[in-house]
């Protein structure tokens, strides 16, 4: 890996990439590049070792079986945990969000061990949450209201070591009035697929966590899309 560039590590696109998860890597790269920060996207397949020296790690959504397989391989590999311990930023979506917790449910809701980056436990709800979601982010993070699409049956309980990412305005999220969770530079969310394209503020949070203060960008298509989707969801 190039050590003068911002290294974006996409974990297991072969197992965890269901809903346009590629968008998160692309938008991080773009928003870094627009500020003159060189970037490198590293695809790590499930047969590869996870590099420890990345700056931002991305995990996407996946179906039941790939999710369990991915969790097993990440635990056995250990690279992601070591990277998070040395302060790398992690964004985990849907199945990925559940994987980075302590446990998650399989198709019969039996608990499966997660990687343990977040103090959360996930299981299955009674019905699938499908639709647009709107939520107000923890003010400590300085990220404006977020919006996205959720499509999951997960319910997630946060332990004392993890802070809710946001308070749900529209949608289900964790299932208890909150959506997502974070601790240090590790963040998880049910806003699937292109969560960062639809929320430039969230993308910039990850960049701030890795490179420090960054100059603002003039509003572009991402800001416009966010406003359009907020208006459509709130009415």
């Amino acid at each position: 890996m190039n050590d003068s560039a911002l290294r974006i590590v996409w974990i297991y696109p072969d197992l965890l990439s269901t809903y346009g998860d590629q968008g998160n890597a692309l938008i991080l790269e773009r928003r870094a590049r627009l500020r003159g920060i060189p970037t490198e996207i590293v695809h790590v397949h499930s047969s590869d070792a996870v590099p420890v020296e990345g700056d931002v790690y991305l995990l996407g959504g996946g179906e039941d079986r790939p999710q369990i397989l991915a969790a097993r391989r990440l635990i056995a590999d250990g690279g992601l945990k070591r990277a998070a311990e040395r302060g790398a930023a992690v964004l985990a979506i849907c199945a990925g969000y559940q994987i980075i917790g302590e446990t998650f449910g399989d198709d019969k809701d039996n608990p499966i061990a997660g990687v343990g980056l977040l103090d959360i436990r996930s299981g299955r709800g009674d019905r699938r949450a499908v639709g647009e979601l709107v939520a107000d982010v923890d003010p400590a993070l300085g990220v404006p209201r977020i919006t996205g699409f959720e499509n999951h049956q997960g319910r997630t309980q946060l332990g004392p070591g993890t802070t809710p990412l946001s308070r749900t305005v529209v949608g289900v999220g964790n299932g208890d009035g909150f959506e997502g969770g974070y601790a240090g530079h590790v963040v998880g969310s049910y806003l699937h697929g292109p969560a960062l394209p639809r929320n430039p503020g969230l993308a910039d949070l990850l960049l701030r966590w890795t490179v420090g203060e960054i100059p603002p960008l003039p509003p572009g298509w991402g800001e416009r899309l966010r406003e359009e989707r907020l208006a459509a969801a709130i009415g």
Partner: protein
Amino acid sequence: MSKLSLRARLAATLGLSAARLSRATGRGDGSVIGGRVALKVEPDVLAELSRGRQLALVSATNGKTTTTRLITNALRALGPVATNEFGANMPSGHITALSSDLEARNAVLEVDEKYLPMVLSDTKAAVVVLMNLSRDQMDRASEINLLAQKWRFALRGSPAHVVANCDEPLVAWAGLGSSNATWVAAGQRWKEDSWCCPECGGHLDRSADPHWECHECGLRRPEPSWVLDGDTVTDPHGRKHELRMKLPGDANRANAAIALATAAVFGVPPDNALPRLREVTSVAGRYSSIQRGPVEVRLLMAKNPAGWLESFAILDPPPVPVALSVNAQVPDGRDTSWLWDVDYTVLRGRKVFVLGERRTDLALRLDTDDVEFEVIDHIDQAVAKTGTKRLDVVANYTAFQQIRTEWGRVT
């Protein structure tokens, strides 16, 4: 068809007149409404209507309508063929199709992926044709691995002859549920949904494409008896046939190869089938060219990442511009995340117009791939601004239907 019960006959008659009514009142192609009425009157009518006939069921994520049309054209060498040619691919549409031609000995039915097990069980179809499975409308469709599992289970309990694409791991695994299969090497451009073994979840070794193999459980690509290579199909006797289709692109060459293999199962040899496949120039308005003033416009419908990838591969070269239109209504899927699974960099250096109800999503996506574009509100603006005599349009389902409706149901 004297075996048809009186009630089934009645249902068929009712269905037909409702279809006529629907056409007369301009509410659509008539193919869905007719069957909906019939289903209420006689639940077993599909089984009744299928009895004594040779049926082929055609299912896939992409190319169902086209392949159904190609097989139908080929089988007409044997006489009349009943078919749901307007893409009404659920049981109500099948009833309308079968009841509108009671004399046809052969029938070819396009079947929605989710309905395939049920329709197979109801119709006892002789042949099942499977082309591909990929991510599609995921806010409501079931996960495709689950779908493949249901296909596999349905085929295990059926004597049907399967004709399937062995280059698609999920489809091949489903087809291996049958003990009677013809494998066609028809290729696979979209691979993002098949890096995992459908049997055990292990990593699929695809380094020797088109071969694929799981080193954990041993599942591997079945040996094909029909092989598509470029524009040439090699049949089980080793004879080579040049396709020279009017329909464009690799996806349609794959559909044609599968249609040839299916026709052979019905007893129509390639030499007889191929000229009939070449007659097909447009399917339900897709691939058709429309003259709008001085501009010849070609309409391509693509509903999911695999479909968009295939469409980009058959665009006219620059300077011919392309208009992309995306909606997110219920039939399209309410979620536009899939836009991020498509690689748009092939559009760089080309004039691109963006429209549709979700044009802002598309604009951000193209911007991210450094593709220049112009946002417009109406397709006629693209026609007015082409600067050439041609325009290609790629649209997803309802966006495509909107353009067709505005321009007067072009077929």
